[in-house]
């Protein structure tokens, strides 16, 4: 199996025109996301879900909505904020339970963000781990090794009750592993 096929199995890219639906009988109960019609069956556990789009396309609103759903179910969630752009007041307004949220501010350092996300996944027990790559420069994203994708995919599968969201701007140039 090629790396591309492998990643295709563990990722659920979110592009609004066509959303790959969940299988009929998922292994674990998905996180219900009423209000997000792009996920009619909720979000799959134990996998990576990518939410991408241009500015003002509702990426953050979707993330906060999912975090609100998860924290309402008493799940502990984490946001790894590469560019330090998370707005706690918006999260509160979206009814995210801030007491159940771990926020990691990475100060525009993508490598720190990847390592922090890796540590959180390795720790286990989180309902949702958000890795926010919004506004990260494409040349920085291009330098992210492919091995991270495989490690994250494996970890999110092993630490079963996981969602993973990779959020970033779309990139015009296609690549083997779809970070966009």
């Amino acid at each position: 199996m090629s790396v591309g096929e492998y990643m295709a199995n563990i990722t659920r890219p979110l592009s609004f025109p066509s959303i790959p639906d969940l299988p009929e009988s998922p292994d674990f109960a998905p996180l219900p996301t009423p209000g997000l019609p792009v996920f009619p069956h909720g979000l799959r556990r134990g996998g990576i879900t990518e939410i991408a789009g241009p500015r003002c396309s509702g990426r953050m609103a979707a993330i906060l909505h999912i975090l609100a759903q998860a924290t309402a179910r008493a799940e502990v969630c984490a946001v790894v904020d590469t560019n330090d752009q998370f707005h706690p007041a918006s999260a509160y307004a979206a009814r995210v339970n801030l007491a159940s949220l771990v926020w990691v501010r990475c100060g525009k350092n993508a490598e720190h963000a990847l390592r922090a996300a890796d540590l959180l996944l390795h720790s286990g027990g989180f309902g949702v781990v958000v890795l926010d790559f919004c506004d990260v420069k494409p040349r920085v994203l291009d330098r992210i090794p492919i091995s991270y994708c495989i490690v994250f995919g494996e970890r999110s599968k092993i630490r079963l009750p996981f969602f993973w969201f990779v959020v970033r701007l779309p990139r015009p140039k296609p690549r083997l592993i779809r970070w966009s």
Partner: protein
Amino acid sequence: MYACLYLPGTPNGMPKQRLVALAREFSPEVEHTSADTVVFSITPLRAILGPPYQIASEISRRGYERDLNAHLAIAANADTAILLARQFAGVRLVASGEEASQLANLPLESLFAHDVPVDPTLLDILHQWGLKTCGDLAALPEAGVRERLGLAGVYLRNLALGHINRPLRIESQEAEYEEQLELEHPLDRLEPLFFLFGRALGDLCGRLRSQSQAARILDARLVLDGKPEYQCRLEFPVPLSDSRTMLKLLQLHLERHSPEARVMGFKLRIEPVVPRRMQNGLFLPPIPQPDKLQVTLARIAGLVGEGNVGTPQLLDTFRPDAFRLTTLNGSCFEQKPDDSRRQILRLSMRIFRPPVAAHVQVMDFVPRRIVAGDVKGRVVEWSGPWKTSGEWWSSHAWTREEWDVELDDGALYRIYRDVPASLWYVHGVYD
């Protein structure tokens, strides 16, 4: 069987400690009933010392050796022993079933001087009824006492009959959780120090667990060669009892803040608390293990800085983007699921930190064009200005005019003009 030692006329202080010390010679479980009274169980001693009169003899002998002029009473229950010891000098032995007859001559006041507080007005009522002794009260029918005096009256009657059986109220000894070591040769590297820490923390945690306690604070002090003492205080959001987790947290802290000189010795002290008990459920979502999560957050803090990881907490102010990061506390592990449905997506914001300085072209007091880094374009819609100001008394004072503007590329931004400096900034983007 219970033995009660009563030392009359002793205020708080040394006599009580001598009483407790004498009691502990016979039983590890001693109830400190009051400053002058202790009770302990002698049932296990029957196999060693023989019948109760021999046990009483041995207690008296040890008391004489310690020069303690205490009263001793032995009875089938603790309360009868206490009442008799406080009333009669010397040694008093009560066989099982004879409690009522032994207590019968005691004045009613002795029941009200007992440890369980009873409404003192009941004593006046009993005196009005013509009752003087415990025997008088015990002779009354229980149903009638309950009707007239309630549960307090029934308790007094049972006390007078010697029918109250209760377990002893044992107070565990306050333990000190402290380990210290002076090294023969100073250590200039941390690895061998961690090895010694591991052994000391293993002993401390073993003692903690044996007392059903957990650590809330770990205080480490290092004696340095020619430098002031190095102190490190780790406060755990969730109490820990695992030595490896504590060692890892200490290791991460010392790697971030290394001592300035060679280590000549150390002292570790743990402040104990009652450990957190939590009942998980089959249908509750899994949560991170508290000890593992603390290590993970400490590792991440080492990566991104201590102030950059935690739980966001909004501040009670109108200041824009006012928050602080706090350490994750135990409450996040005790959240209850909230079944209310959240079906509405709300407009959310992404903040630029620090705000991006912008060149704004203004016409007719309205921003028309913005250039700020990668944010540039013609303003097609706007809303504002929204004037805010506050905290003029502090260094966080702000005065600004905020605008929500839509650019020709469809993006929606919040910009503001810093009024005192007359400068424009892009504060964030709606996303």
